[in-house]
Structure formats: C-alpha cells, structure tokens
C-alpha cells in the first residue's frame, strides 16, 4: 500500500489492485461507515447576508472610531514632539554655545581656560571657545591679538581668519588684524596652517604675513610679547599697521595727511603714555602730529 493510502482512497487515487487489497482488510467496512456517516455531517448555518451587513456596519464604525481616536493622539503627539524638539534644541544650543570674551579699544584682558592655559587678550580682540567640549578638543577661535600660555596636553588649536595655529603646549602670541597676521612663538614649536600650507615656527621666531606676503621668519629676543608689558613693538612694519595699533591702544581716531603709510617702522611705543607714544612714532618717521580730544592727525610738512 502506498503512503497515505486512506487519503488517496478518498480521492480515488488508488490503483485497482490496491483497492482490491484494501477491500480485503478488516478495517475497510469501518472506514466505509465513517465516510458514509461523515458525508451526512453539516456545518452550522451561516447567514452570509447577515454577516455581510454586520461587517459593513462595523467597517463604518471603525472608520468613525478611528477619526475620534486618532485626533487627540495626533494632537498630543505633535505637542510632545514640539516640546521634545525645543528641549533638545535648547540642550544642543547651551552645550554648543561658545564662551566669548572680548576686549574693546584701550582694554586688555586675561583669562584662564578650563585646562589652566592662560590667555592674554590685547585691545580690540575677541576669543571664543566651547567650555563643554573642551575636554574633547582644545579649540579656540581668535580675532585680534592674544598671547597664549598653553598647558601641556592634547593638541591645542587656534582658528583665525588668516590661518590655523596648532601646538601641543607652549607660549605664543597671535595677532590677526586686517591684512596682518603674525604668530610669534616664545617656547617650543608652533604649527601654522596658512592658506592650506603648514609652517613650523620654533621658539624665538616669528611668522608674519603682511598684505598677503609671507615675511621670512624673524628672530625674537624677548620672552613675552612686549604688549603684555604695555609696550607695542614693531620691526619693519608698514606705518599704517602701527597707526592702527595706536588707535586700538588709546581708543583714538587716527588720520593722516601727506604721510606715506607704507613706509616701514621699527621701534616701539608705550601703551599708557599717549604723549610719549605719539613722539615715539612721529620723530623716527619725521612727521608731525596734532592731537585734539581723541583725534590725532599725522601730517608731513612739504
């Protein structure tokens, strides 16, 4: 007998031989009886029309119920989403918000970063850094002039409009003004990224870019920038930058008449004594000046 022969038998799939063989068995009569009796079985009544009507009623009911149910949920969900968004935005805002310290004309400032690195800000300068992210990256952005005493540790980066300065831990001064960029390293080694190129500035030297031209590295004898000692020092710097510095240090408006502001100036002026400072600039440059309130006019006699 083949497999599942009872199923085959019901389906008339047995061979004649198999049927003869099957009919000889004792069970055959019982099976016959079961089939005869089961053929008389009937499933309970099922009223299709009634069921369909009920389903259609239910279909509409669930449709309406859906509208009622979903609306408040949608409303609350949107409110919740809005609150969540505000909270996360607020959190994001406060954690990413930079700490900004700035100085005005004739002002200096001193601050300590979270890792005890010290920063001295010269007049009209701005420094920004992220307090919360500080442990991850020591990143400072600078506009103006500042002297850094960086504590040893991970890479310390200063971003300026002119270039990026990165160090491991050293003392250096950065001055970024319009068309003027100077990085002076007093200790260790500083890497300056200017226009996509890297320049190594070892201790005791100064990297300077004036009007887009890179000057050769010059040596620096002092241990700290002179401005931290209330003295502005220049070495072969066009006069216009010197005058700009004078403006910043004394909160003055400087104008010139018949003066070649491109001529180079080497020397220094005192950041506290205006009279002395004006003389320090005018005498070597052979120009005269006229001070009126907070306005200075430099002029050359023809």
């Amino acid at each position, binding site marked *: 007998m083949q*497999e*599942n022969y009872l199923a085959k038998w019901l389906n008339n799939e047995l061979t004649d031989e198999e049927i003869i063989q099957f009919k000889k068995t004792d069970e055959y009569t*019982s099976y016959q009886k079961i089939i005869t009796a089961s053929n008389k079985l009937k499933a309970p009544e099922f009223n299709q029309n009634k069921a369909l009507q009920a*389903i259609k009623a239910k279909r509409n009911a669930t449709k309406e119920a859906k509208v009622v149910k979903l609306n408040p949920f949608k409303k609350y969900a949107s409110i919740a989403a809005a609150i969540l968004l505000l909270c996360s935005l607020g959190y994001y805002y406060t954690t990413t918000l930079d700490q900004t310290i700035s100085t005005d004309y004739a002002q200096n400032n001193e601050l300590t970063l979270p890792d005890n690195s010290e920063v001295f800000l010269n007049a009209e300068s701005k420094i920004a850094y992220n307090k919360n992210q500080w442990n991850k990256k020591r990143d400072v952005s600078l506009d103006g002039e500042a002297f850094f005493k960086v504590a040893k540790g991970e890479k310390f980066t200063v971003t300026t409009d002119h270039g990026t300065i990165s160090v491991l831990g050293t003392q250096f001064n950065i001055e970024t003004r319009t068309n003027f960029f100077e990085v002076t390293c007093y200790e260790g080694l500083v890497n300056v990224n200017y226009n996509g190129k890297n320049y190594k500035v070892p201790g005791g030297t100064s990297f300077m870019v004036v009007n887009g031209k890179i000057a050769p590295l010059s040596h620096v004898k002092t241990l700290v920038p002179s401005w931290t000692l209330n003295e502005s020092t220049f070495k072969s710097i066009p006069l216009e930058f010197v005058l700009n510095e004078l403006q910043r240090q004394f909160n003055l408006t400087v104008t010139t008449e018949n003066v070649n502001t491109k001529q180079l100036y080497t020397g220094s002026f005192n950041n506290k004594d205006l009279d002395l400072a004006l003389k320090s600039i005018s005498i070597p440059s052979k120009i005269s000046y006229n001070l009126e309130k907070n306005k200075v006019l430099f002029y050359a006699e023809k």
Partner: protein
Amino acid sequence: MNIENNTNVCEEKVYNQIFTTNSKTVFNYIYYKFGNEEKAYDAVQEAFVKLWENCAKVVPTKAKSYVYTIANNLYLNMIKADKVRLKYAHLNTGVTNETPEFLLEEKEFQEKLDNALASLPENQRTTFLLNRIDKKKYAEIAELEGVSVKAIEKRMHLALKSLREHIDGI
C-alpha cells in the same frame, strides 16, 4: 470566480464577490478548529473588516489567503480560552424506509463519530471536515493552511485512522 488582477479590493463589487465566495468556508474553517459558532462568526467578521481596512494593500488574488491568515491568527490568539466542543448538524436523510434498529444503530454511530472528531488534533479535524463537508480538494486545503498537499494527505490519512481506532474502540 474571475477576479482580474487589475481590479481593486476597495471596490464594493470586488469585495462583495470575495466575501460571497469565501465567507462560508472561513466560517467553517474556524468552526472546525474551535467548535464554537459565535467565535467562528466573529472571526469571519474580523477577517473581512481587516480586509476592508487594508483593501488598498491586498491584491484580489491574494485576498482569499489574506482572509484565512487573519482568521487563523485570531483563532491562535483565542485557542487557550476554550476547549473544543464540536456540534454538527446532521443531514436529515429525508424519507427513510430503514428499520428502527438500523436507525438507532446509525444514531449511535453518529454520536461515536462526533466524539471521535472532537478528540482529533485540530489540524487533522479541520482538514478532514473541509474535505468531507465543504468538498475542498487537498490542494485547496493545503493553500489555506499554508502547507504542502502531501502534508494534507498525511493529515487526512491520520484523521481517518484515528477516527476508526476511536470508533472501533482500539
């Protein structure tokens, strides 16, 4: 029935046709498993309401197996609740000229058969009754149950074997 592929279940006409063709068998299918008319009725309703809700996603050719799957899932969720209690309406053979003894014997046999059916495993009973009452082919039952034709033949064979053993008191 001829439901073209490009028609949509969401169309009332198509939906009604699917209902008319399948609802009775879905009802029986669940009834054979459950032995409870009310639940079978509920299952049919639930399944067809779900079909309507998802009419856009179900292509007409798949609607049938969709409805059976939903109904079967409902059955699986409820299975723990009740013990199967089957009750069958027995066909009235109409005018009989059989002897009272024969009728009594037949009645007794029907009772034995009912008991034997109730004691069958659910899948064997469903297969057996779909074949006997609803005259479903093995292939069609296989499709509803999501198994092979051979598996259905096996169930059918085992169902008959158990029924006989139960009735003959082995």
